[in-house]
């Protein structure tokens, strides 16, 4: 098997890369997992059709805003939806089904530590390692399918968190039907415990950390030595596993054994004690990643200011997502929807300019020059639209014709 020369394309790649062996492996495992889960979930639907339908409805209400929130966390470059949905499918179908196959590790724990320890700690010892590894494997396959889409740590977080969301969704349905009885009342009880009280924590965070580790490892190949990247990647994966371990363990367990009356109100508090540390850690990591993204953008585009791809005023807008959104809204109000879309396109191409600038060896690299020209042509097209004289554009730069 020989290495293959690959163009480092800056075009957005979709999930469907037919020249990548990883795509076929990914697709086969998702298809297999989908079949397994279909059989399991179909059997569970026999318990209660109404409970089953209610489960999916409630989880859709939870998963949709979480999906949108995570997807929009990437400040500068939203990930291709096909890859994001691919991550979701891996978590929901492949990782869950593969995890169900990996049940022998419980027996290992019993054999090594005895039944009493296994009964109390088994779920905390086996599930985190098994599940985080299987979910992480999917993120790695996504990277192997579309390497260009893993530009930084944030990209890894997005794919990891969405993968975790898919896993949590299917796991919750299994719990609602199999553990909480599957009746509508049982489903509501399960939804209160597993989503309302604890939905902020869990798989989304754990696998988000794993994804961050993968994103860091693959996106810092030039800037950081292998040893450093390995330490960070393994460290973030370990944090996800430890967070999962604490979540499943009897540690910090303040949950009422049989909640009744006011006890139900203590349930979210009990979960918060376990889950808040990981949530705060992830928020800190995201803040650092956002800062890193902003620093990268500044560093990449500072050398472009003398050229026609971007001006200082445009960079000031570009580096702040809120300012970008304001500028697009203002353009839409001033000059119509096509102008608003074109400004958004210009912003995206200026991000692409930053990526190119960070990759090429010289400032007169043909690809970089071509991208500058493209940004200038977009600006010219925008300037030609009546009413589109935005304050973000400095006068006279790049005006053609």
């Amino acid at each position, binding site marked *: *098997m020989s*290495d*293959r*020369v*690959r*163009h*480092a*394309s*800056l*075009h957005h790649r979709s999930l469907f890369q037919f020249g990548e*062996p*990883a795509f076929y*492996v990914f697709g086969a*495992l998702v298809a297999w997992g989908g079949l397994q889960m279909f059989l*399991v979930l179909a*059997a569970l639907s026999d*318990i209660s059709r109404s409970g089953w339908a209610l489960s999916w409805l409630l989880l859709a209400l939870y998963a949709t805003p979480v999906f949108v929130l995570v997807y929009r966390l990437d400040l500068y470059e939203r990930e291709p939806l096909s890859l994001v949905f691919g991550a979701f499918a891996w978590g929901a179908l492949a990782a869950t089904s*593969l995890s169900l196959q*990996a*049940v*022998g*590790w*419980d*027996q*290992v*724990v*019993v*054999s*090594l530590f005895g*039944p009493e320890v*296994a*009964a109390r700690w*088994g779920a905390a010892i086996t599930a985190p390692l*098994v599940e985080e*590894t*299987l979910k992480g*494997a999917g993120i*790695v396959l996504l990277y*192997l399918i579309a390497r260009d889409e893993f530009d930084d740590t944030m990209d890894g977080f997005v794919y990891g968190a969405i993968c975790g969301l898919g896993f949590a969704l299917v796991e919750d349905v299994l719990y609602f039907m*199999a*553990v909480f*009885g*599957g009746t509508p009342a*049982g489903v509501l009880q399960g939804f209160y415990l597993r989503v309302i009280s604890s939905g902020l924590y869990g798989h989304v965070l754990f696998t988000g950390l794993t994804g961050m580790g993968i994103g860091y490892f693959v996106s810092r190949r030039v800037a950081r030595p292998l040893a450093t990247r390995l330490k960070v990647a393994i460290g973030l994966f370990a944090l996800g596993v430890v967070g999962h371990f604490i979540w499943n363990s009897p540690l910090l367990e303040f949950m009422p054994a049989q909640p009744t009356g006011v006890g139900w109100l203590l349930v979210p508090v009990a979960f918060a004690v376990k889950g808040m540390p990981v949530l705060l850690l992830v928020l800190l990591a995201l803040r650092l990643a956002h800062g890193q993204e902003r620093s990268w953008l500044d560093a990449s585009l500072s050398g472009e200011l003398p050229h026609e791809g971007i001006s200082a005023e445009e960079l000031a807008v570009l580096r702040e997502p809120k300012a970008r959104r304001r500028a697009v809204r203002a353009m839409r109000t001033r000059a119509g929807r*096509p102008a608003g879309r*074109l400004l958004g396109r210009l912003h995206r191409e200026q991000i692409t300019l930053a990526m*190119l600038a960070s*990759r*090429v060896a010289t400032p007169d*690299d*043909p*690809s970089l020059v*071509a*991208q500058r*020209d*493209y940004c200038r042509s*977009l600006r*010219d*097209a925008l300037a030609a*639209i009546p009413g589109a004289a935005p304050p973000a554009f400095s006068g006279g730069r790049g005006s053609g014709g």
Partner: protein
Amino acid sequence: MRTPIPDRPDEAPSQRRRERKWLPVLAVLATIAFVTGGAASVGDAVSRPVRLAETVRFDPAPGWIEVGRRVEEGLHELLLQRGSAGLYVVVLPEEGGTAVELAESYASFGLRRQYARVTIGDAEAATLGDGVPAVRYGYVGVSTDGVATEGVVVTAVTPDGTGVVFDGFAPQGELAAAIDDLGAMLEGVDLT
């Protein structure tokens, strides 16, 4: 007049990076294979057989873990679980009688007391792993809060009169997923 949106530039020809295609994919597959398939091998390698009251001995199927055992009023009880499925084993020393009588006794004093409503299936002859004749029947029990459980009971009496009951159960709709494991464990039972 609408200004046409310029076309995208061609892919940057200067950006080339050699990347391995197959080796990392194989590494990922090997990891997945170890985490899933390796569990059974390692589990089998380190698993210990389950013993109860010096009478019953069998190897738990992969993923089945012992979650409790007790001795009370002369009865030796053991519970194994895998997910939501369970296997309850009880040994009744000096029980005497036949496997059929033990099956009826368990239905009356075990299942009918445990569930608010229980439907017992027809009993049929069966054989445990070491050739000991046994009786088998299925049941569906509904608890007071409406949760339905389905199960299979196998009873046997050893030559010295010790009664053994195996009750494999799961929430309704899920027993099929566990039945192969339950069958494998019972086929490997060694009664002394």
